[in-house]
């Protein structure tokens, strides 16, 4: 099969590493390859690089450098927060509040904690994927030790009222963690102003490398370690530092936060064109997520009567890379828990398509999608026993 175009519209799954980021990483592989724990010059050079990256991450979040801890990614950061805070604060209580639409890194860790005797409240969301602050307040008990609510959802892009949540948590003296893996680079973050106590991020979501992330932990937060061993990261996270990854993460977050306004402006314009075009050209289509309070790069649709995987495969053959919350793509039996949580039926959730824009996309990419997608949907619908009934009924 000859493929002329490759249009990547799956930036929420992962992004390519920017050239400028890679260039800072390269000498760290082959020249400044020392172990930051070593006493000699190779080690000191490496340590300087790690310190510089830590400062860059801190600056991007409005945190102090000593509040930043590097991890192997967003998943490890999420696991660390939940277990670390739960185990360290057992004496204060055993209740955790989160939402029904968190990433599995949070949800599966919560389920594990439930098995160990912790109580977890999974806040519901409305049809836009928003939690209710009233629900949150009502769910707080004297036993509540942690509120963990994602900044922005990875599937439908809905952005939660983080500042308000932070205020409520601070008033009640409960730790507040936010999984900001999808938010960094798309949303302006200030952990102090927003009363965030802990925040997870992952390099490969904002044009940095894969396999590196960070956890911001406000000074004074009681949290146990997750990964035990050597004294790296000031005794909080063991394992030889991934120095090239850390350097890349530092550069990537600097670029992402410096350029956030122009980045967002460009993405919002493309997204509007995409959403308007799809909604206009394809009937029986629904936009998932909040119409305004959503990530600037996220478009998520449900096309009734068709199924996500066959849609993705067809798009792929036309060179377009997207994703779907369909059960058929996930290898699990149910479609995405996020789509179910916003109230979609299994059948509708089945036909979801997520297109997430990035810095490398152009207006022409959108034109091409708007040319190709309606045809594909039409073709799949013509094969669908469900669509037949609708047409018949018309």
């Amino acid at each position, binding site marked *: 099969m000859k493929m002329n175009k490759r249009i990547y519209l799956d930036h929420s799954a992962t992004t390519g590493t920017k050239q400028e980021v890679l260039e800072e990483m390269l000498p760290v592989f082959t020249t400044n390859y020392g172990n930051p724990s070593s006493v000699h010059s190779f080690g000191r050079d490496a340590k300087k690089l790690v310190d510089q990256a830590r400062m860059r991450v801190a600056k991007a979040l409005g945190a102090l450098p000593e509040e930043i801890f590097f991890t192997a990614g967003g998943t490890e950061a999420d696991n660390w927060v939940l277990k670390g805070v739960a185990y360290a604060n057992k004496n204060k209580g055993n209740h955790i509040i989160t939402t029904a639409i968190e990433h599995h890194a949070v949800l599966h860790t919560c389920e594990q904690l439930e098995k160990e005797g912790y109580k977890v409240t999974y806040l519901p969301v409305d049809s836009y994927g928003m939690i209710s602050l009233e629900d949150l307040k009502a769910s707080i008990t004297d036993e509540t030790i942690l509120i963990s609510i994602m900044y922005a959802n990875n599937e439908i892009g809905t952005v939660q009222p983080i500042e308000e949540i932070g205020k409520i948590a601070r008033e009640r003296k409960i730790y507040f963690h936010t999984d900001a893996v999808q938010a960094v680079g798309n949303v302006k973050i200030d952990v102090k102003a927003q009363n965030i106590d802990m925040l997870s991020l992952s390099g490969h979501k904002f044009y940095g490398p894969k396999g590196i992330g960070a956890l911001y932990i406000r000074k004074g937060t009681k949290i146990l370690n997750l990964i035990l061993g050597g004294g790296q990261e000031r005794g909080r996270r063991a394992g030889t530092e991934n120095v090239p990854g850390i350097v890349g993460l530092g550069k990537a977050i600097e670029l992402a936060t410096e350029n956030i306004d122009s980045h967002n402006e460009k993405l919002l314009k493309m997204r509007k064109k995409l959403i308007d075009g799809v909604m206009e050209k394809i009937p029986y289509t629904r936009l998932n997520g909040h119409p305004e309070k959503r990530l600037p790069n996220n478009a998520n649709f449900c096309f009734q009567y068709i199924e996500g995987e*066959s849609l993705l495969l067809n798009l792929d053959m036309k060179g377009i890379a997207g994703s779907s919350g369909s059960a*058929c793509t996930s*290898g699990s039996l149910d479609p995405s828990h996020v789509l179910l949580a916003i109230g979609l039926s299994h059948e509708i959730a089945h036909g979801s398509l997520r297109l997430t824009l990035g810095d490398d996309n152009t207006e022409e990419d959108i034109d091409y999608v708007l040319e190709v997608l309606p045809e594909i949907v039409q073709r799949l619908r013509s094969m*669908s*026993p*469900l669509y037949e009934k609708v047409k018949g009924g018309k």
Partner: protein
Amino acid sequence: MYSEKVMDHFTAPRNVGEIDNADGIGEVGNAKCGDIMKIYLKIEDDVIEDVKFKTFGCGAAIATSSIATEMIKGKTIDEALQLTNKAVVEALDGLPPQKIHCSVLAEEAVKAAIEDYKKKNNK
């Protein structure tokens, strides 16, 4: 992920559509992933003269529907009843393990359509 054969039947599915006044119609749903397959049969003297399908499902579901219709076309209903999901998978040069259940859908849809024909004709 998918074999060339699967992709071939997925991109150019054979026998898509409906048959007006079909002699047998089978519609089955896949309890596992919520997908639906519908098969239409035109039968004369217990021989399947024509067959069409419609499917709401993944790439594997579409490909299995397509090849299953090819495999039963021109066969007697007794022969068609012998069709197994294993034979369908083999004919497609295999399916990923998490997609085997999609082939079960094809087997069930064929059987349901023949049952429907038998019932209508009191056989």
